[in-house]
């Protein structure tokens, strides 16, 4: 009788790449739900658009590269990229924005670098940066949160706005952003930045309607939802604690220091942590295994670098939020970080000692 030969180990944990990706998508659901509640159902349409684009682009490039399309599509990595980009861009951004972004992320940033596992940059963030510098206006056209919206926007309005730039009732996206006085409402981070640059104190700025409890109206809850999703990923051991803790820790530390020195010109640490894309980035974006550092120490450095960069750009840079830039800059340093943070192998002296 002859038996099948295989190399050890003969046992395998049941966690495959596809399952990890599915868990990531699952963990993002609470955040997406809260986002849809506060900022309109547009995010769901964006999600669909991004997913379809991602799968089509991925399949096309895999076909050109003569790879096994089905196996690779089913690893769900393209879907996670699409998801991250879809939730990062404004809910009512025109349809072509997310299509261009997703296609760029999948084709250029991911597949042209060699496909899954070979890309230097986080595809979603690289695409976000491309869109932000190419189409700054639609990329910053966030609607105010539902409770402070002047015009009520329904599910159908989202479809109309995304595909025609006008809601079904005939408002343009910029009109939807206006308050009762006809002034466009920016995101909380943007508002604060503008106000501070105009000489207002933080306390004065925070009285505006776009701000709510602890941070921006609605934004606090969105961040809280992503935080919960992130904790779920940690509990499932899909991600390790080092990167999110380092990101949040360094951002908290920097903003706390700045806030203690000058509370009038700096946002509070809690405001920083629960504004913009903080939680989404800390748990879902910075932890992208492919483009993040792989060593234990390296992950701490990588995360801390992102946190510091976010604080610097938010406080002193030209953009209200900064995660895309911070993550991309940190991605660039990964080979260097990994090289210099190799762990000490059992039985060896420290690398520095050689």
């Amino acid at each position, binding site marked *: 009788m002859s038996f099948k030969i295989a*190399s050890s180990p003969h046992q395998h944990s049941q966690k495959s790449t596809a*399952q990890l990706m599915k868990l990531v998508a699952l963990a993002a659901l609470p955040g997406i739900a809260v986002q849809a509640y506060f900022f309109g159902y547009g995010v769901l349409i964006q999600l669909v658009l991004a997913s379809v684009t991602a799968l089509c682009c991925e399949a096309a490039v895999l076909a050109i590269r003569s790879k096994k399309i089905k196996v690779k599509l089913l690893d769900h990595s393209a879907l996670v990229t699409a998801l991250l980009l879809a939730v990062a861009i404004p809910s009512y951004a025109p349809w072509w924005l997310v299509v261009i972004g997703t296609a760029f992320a999948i084709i250029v940033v991911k597949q042209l670098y060699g496909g899954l596992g070979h890309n230097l940059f986080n595809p979603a963030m690289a695409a976000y940066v491309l869109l932000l510098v190419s189409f700054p206006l639609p990329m910053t056209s966030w609607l105010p949160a539902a409770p402070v919206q002047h015009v009520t926007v329904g599910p159908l309005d989202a479809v109309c706005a995304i595909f025609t730039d006008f809601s079904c009732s005939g408002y343009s996206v910029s009109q939807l952003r206006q308050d009762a006085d006809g002034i466009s409402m920016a995101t909380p981070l943007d508002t604060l930045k503008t106000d501070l640059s105009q000489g207002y104190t933080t306390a004065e700025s925070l009285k505006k309607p776009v701000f709510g409890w602890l941070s921006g109206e609605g934004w606090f809850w969105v961040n809280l939802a992503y935080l919960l999703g992130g904790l779920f990923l940690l509990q499932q051991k899909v991600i*390790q604690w080092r990167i999110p803790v380092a990101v949040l820790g360094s951002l908290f530390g920097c903003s706390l220091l700045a806030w203690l020195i000058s509370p009038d010109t700096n946002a509070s640490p809690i405001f920083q942590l629960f504004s913009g894309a903080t939680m989404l980035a800390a748990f879902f974006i910075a932890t992208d295994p492919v483009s993040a550092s792989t060593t234990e120490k390296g992950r701490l450095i990588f995360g801390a670098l992102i946190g510091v960069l976010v604080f610097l750009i938010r406080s002193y840079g030209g953009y209200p939020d900064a995660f895309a830039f911070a993550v991309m800059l940190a991605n660039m340093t990964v080979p260097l970080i990994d090289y210099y943070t190799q762990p000490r192998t059992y039985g*060896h002296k420290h690398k520095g000692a050689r």
Partner: protein
Amino acid sequence: MPTLFQHIQAGKVWDFHGGIHPPSRKERTNQKPVALLDIPDRLYIPLRQHIGVAGKVLVKVGDRVLKGQALTQADNAMAVPVHAPTSGIVQAIELHTSAHPSSLAEPALVLAPDGMDEWRPRKPLDPEQVDAYTLLERIQESGISGMGGAGFPTHIKVNVKQPVDYLIINAVECEPYITADDLLMQERASDIIAGIEILVKLLSPKAVLIGIEDDKPIAAASLKAAIGQRTNYFVREVPTKYPSGGEKQLIQLLTNKEVPAGRRPLDIGIVMQNVGTAFAIAQAVLDDIPLIHRVVTVAGETLAQQQNVLALIGTPISDLLNACGFQPEPQQRIIVGGPMMGFAIADWSVPVVKTTNCILAPTENELGAASEEMDCIRCGACADACPASLLPQQLLWYSKAKDQDKLAEYNLSDCIECGACAYVCPSEIPLVHYYRVAKAEIRETQREALKAEQAKARFDARTERLEREKQERLERNQQLAAQRVAQQQASGLASQTAAAVQQALERTQQQTAPALDKEQIIAERERKKAEALAYQQQKQQTQTAEPASVQTSEQTEDPRKAAIAAALARAKAKKQAEAQSEVAAESAPAETAASDADAKKAAVAAAIARAKAKKLAEAQSEEAAEPAPAETAASDADAKKAAVAAAIARAKAKKLAEQPQAETAPASEVAEPVAVPTESTPEQDAKKVAIAAAIARAKAKKQQNSEPL
């Protein structure tokens, strides 16, 4: 600050990096007693079952052997014998598929049991009564090698000169499924402790640390009970984590020490033995039962009865599986060892050997076959799991790239192939397989490098030898050339060309032998000058030797000798005159001048010479004397003969006398008339006359020869 030993005494257990928690599935077999099987029809006993060399075979085909009888004999330190697990007939000694990942055929002894199970005489030892050497000898003779996996000869491992701080007994058994050691501890704890006591006697450690995973409470309790009141025996329960049972990992867990890379545990004062080995030692020493059986876990969902069995060494795996109700499925895998580090076998006639602790026959659902390998997503799960703190994803990258320098930099050699990285890899990359291939390639490269180095050394030696020979030839040629130049210089031909040749020679010597320093060159030159000088002097001597020899021969009494000398002198003079006309020319003018000035004297001398020669010829023929002096002397009595001889001699002498006359005639015309009256000149000494004649002849001849010049 408490010392390490105090920490250990206090029950502290440390941790190691990484590790995984695969489903252990030990509950399937750890509650059932060890089953005894029927004696199989055939036993295939590999002659070598350990790390080392096989012993010398002691039996031949057809022999009946008794249970426990040694089949091989250890004829060197790295050999341990194998024994007959039961009584029976030796059927064959042939190649059989080995219990090794390679499945290579190795020599095995085939035993046909006779079912009597008859023991050879047994001689138990009392460890208290015998010395360490006897114990070590018994351990070796009983065929004991490490039963944890590697199979290193135990008698070498426990025969140490260095002091041992800790004897660690490995009872961790961290691989899933395997409960063989667990059952052994549950059932035979006191024997194990007795075995440990023997090890303690051999090693004298500060303390005995028994490491056991906390999923074996019954076994741990049994051991503690067996230890009783013994001091410095510590049972340390370590958290269940794979691979806690790895030698390095267990050392780290129990002592917080690390074995430095490339060193042995003994170097940090630690010796580790498996519980199964301790049990085997106790059996060998106390009961004289050599290593002929062992507990094997037979598990997997294709078996009706998953259990531990006491298997005789050499039992084919097929027998074990069939005894447990094996129902194979398509694509069936059979794994020897655990699911993490065991190896799959293709042929189930492979026998149980001393290191076989588990036979696994899982279903497809139970241990999913490896699915398709995906790209590494650099998630780093492998690095988190690695107990050696390596970076497996980097090692994979460099293994694929065959970058051996980088693999060395990232310490591939420290990989213990535990499989934790491959277990956790979400992309299902068979990492360990890549590392094994890379390690094999590195070994191959090292072999090649060694071969290349040896070839280079040989080539270098050859080149050096050829160069040396060439140099020697060159030096010899240069010396010969220098001698020639010196000769030429000495013979007066030293000219600018000779000097140029000499310079050129010196140049080439400097170029070809730059090592030759200036002093040596100078010394060489001096030597050559001296040689040349000596040669010149020698030359002059040979020139002056001619007249001297004439003078010396003048004093010789024997006329015969004198004649020979004269003839020689003549010949020499002639040769000299021909070869070195210069020298002759020098002396010739003087001679000529002398003869010109005093022609009469010369003619008189010639005449005297002739007369003398004639007289001498009459008395004792000069020219004929050479061939017949003895004859003449012997026939002195014969008057007639003597008369005839005298006549002949006279005639000859006359002819001889006429010849110089003719020769000297052109030189001095007056010589002829004067010559006749001088014939009557009274003769004083025949010898002298002959010599004088010779000289005269020579001179005349010289003169004659020099005239054309």
